[in-house]
């Protein structure tokens, strides 16, 4: 078995929403979550809205500071006290759901992808942009398209740009937060295929959050099912069948999925 890449222990995150003068409303988004992700593995996180999937992913990459618990990347703690260890950002990259809001509309596509290179590799702009073009070529974008601004691209093309941007700093862990959910099925299939090819080429560890069980079954080795901020089921993706799962909630979820 390969080494443990990401280890989370006892993660808790509580959101408070003020309802002054009434006492603040406390919501436990994730409640005592522990899990291990091994290098090279592809893990899926399933659950309904409000189950804490995105909060958990946020805690893995410094977007959400957990109230309690530890996260370690290859043995190094991600949080020291209240501070996120920024140098670890390079190894963990996130691709968001909405390709329409996750790129800078004022920059060209190539500049968008070059930005992390300038930040982390301190390359000069020309080198960074030519490297960005190589990356864009790898995700299937080339030609005059890379000089255009993201608003002129289609959803699938923008998601390809987001992936190239994430790969620019050679991450070890790629977090995909509903990254294929907003796309049409034919485009979704193209992006899933791209991610599977990249996984093989780069020995990437991928974590895909999705509400779509069939996508997780196809894409992942192992799937974690969350409900009310807790992990209720952890099993091999192939075992996600109503007859095979142990938890009643998972069965209910699987049975609700429409079958073709």
């Amino acid at each position, binding site marked *: 078995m390969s080494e443990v890449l990401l280890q989370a222990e006892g993660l808790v995150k509580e959101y408070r929403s003020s309802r002054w003068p009434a006492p603040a409303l406390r919501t436990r988004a994730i409640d005592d979550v522990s899990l291990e992700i091994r290098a090279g593995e592809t893990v899926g996180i399933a659950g*309904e*809205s409000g189950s804490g999937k995105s909060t958990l992913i946020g805690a893995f990459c410094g977007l959400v500071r957990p109230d309690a618990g530890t996260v370690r990347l290859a043995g190094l703690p991600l949080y020291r006290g209240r501070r996120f260890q920024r140098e670890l950002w390079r190894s963990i990259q996130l691709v968001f759901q909405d390709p329409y809001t996750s790129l800078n509309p004022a920059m060209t596509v190539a500049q968008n992808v070059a930005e992390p290179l300038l930040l982390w590799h301190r390359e000069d702009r020309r080198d960074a942009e030519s490297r960005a073009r190589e990356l864009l070529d790898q995700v299937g974008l080339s030609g005059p398209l890379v000089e255009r601004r993201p608003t002129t691209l*289609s*959803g*699938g093309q923008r998601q390809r740009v987001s992936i190239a941007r994430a790969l620019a700093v050679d991450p070890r862990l790629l977090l995909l937060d509903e990254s294929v959910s907003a796309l*049409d*099925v*034919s*485009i*979704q*299939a*193209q992006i*899933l*295929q791209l991610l*599977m090819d990249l996984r093989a080429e780069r020995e990437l560890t991928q974590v895909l959050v999705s*509400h*779509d*069980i*069939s*996508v997780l*079954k*196809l*894409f992942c080795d192992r799937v974690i099912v969350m409900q009310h901020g807790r992990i209720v089921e952890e099993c091999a993706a192939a075992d996600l069948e109503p007859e095979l799962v142990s938890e009643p909630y998972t069965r*209910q*979820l699987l049975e*609700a*999925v*429409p*079958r*073709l």
Partner: protein
Amino acid sequence: MATMSKTRAADVRVEGLSLELDEPGVAVGEAQRLVRDVSFGVAAGEMVGLAGESGSGKSLTASAIAGLMPSGVRRAGGTILIGAEVCPPGHRHPDVAMIFQNPMTSLNPSVRIGDQIAEAVRLRHKGTSRSAARKRAVEILEQVEVSQAASRARQYPFEFSGGMRQRAMIGIAIARDPAVLVADEPTTALDVTVQRGVMDLIDRLRTDLGLAVLLISHDLGVMSERCDRLLVMYSGELVEVGGTRQVLDQPAHPYVDGLLRCIPDRAMAAGRLQPLLGQVPPPNRWISGCRFADRCGSATPACESAPVPLAPLSPSAQGREVRCIHPLTPATAGERSAR
């Protein structure tokens, strides 16, 4: 059970519907045509699915039936019949109700749910008193399976969950006592478990009220469970029409076949993902021939040169039509998957 008011069962018929952009500066001709020659019917008590990807024209077709076409789009041809009545462009036929994808943006955030339903009741039945309309609103909420309907009716949309909001929207739709329900992606924003509940409700109302339901969705899974017949659109045209099971099990149009191979469930069964290459062409690149030709494995020069009609697949296949000059047969489909 709430008292059910009489509904006039009616069929919808759409014949040769064409919609085009009506804006200055747009070239006249094929470039401005967004929906071309769409014909289909939905019988009372039937649920028909209209499937397609973004930009295929499915929502435009739906809004044309409901008389809610966006500004800048005009009907270039064709007729819409509700029962025996011809619907002129832009006419909001009182027997047609529509529900939308996002219930939060289609409900008024500052008006209580019950009052929004009562408003629809009073619009339809002129002369209904306020108190009678409120009472009817509570009955309707019960009918759409909202628990504690009387107290729920006094709440605002923000106090409702996503699934509950969609039920309230369906309530407003049935307050019109419609004969036809146009559901535009009604469950896309909902979780699967909630989706099942809402689809069960629409199904039940269809049988109870004898509604003709046109379900617009990109989710073929939902359609395979709920629809009697399936219409598939691509680039503003119907490309395949037929019984749901026939279309899904033996697609005849290469696009439909390719689309099905992209669906994770099917890809799992096939052992690999076979993405459709390329993308849907934008309207200004549409050609008069087959619009799928540049992405199609079996395209020949003849495909692009002349318009391809929507023709019956075979003389024996009832109601099965395809817009393709090289339709797939079970034998050739097997070859394709082996390739």
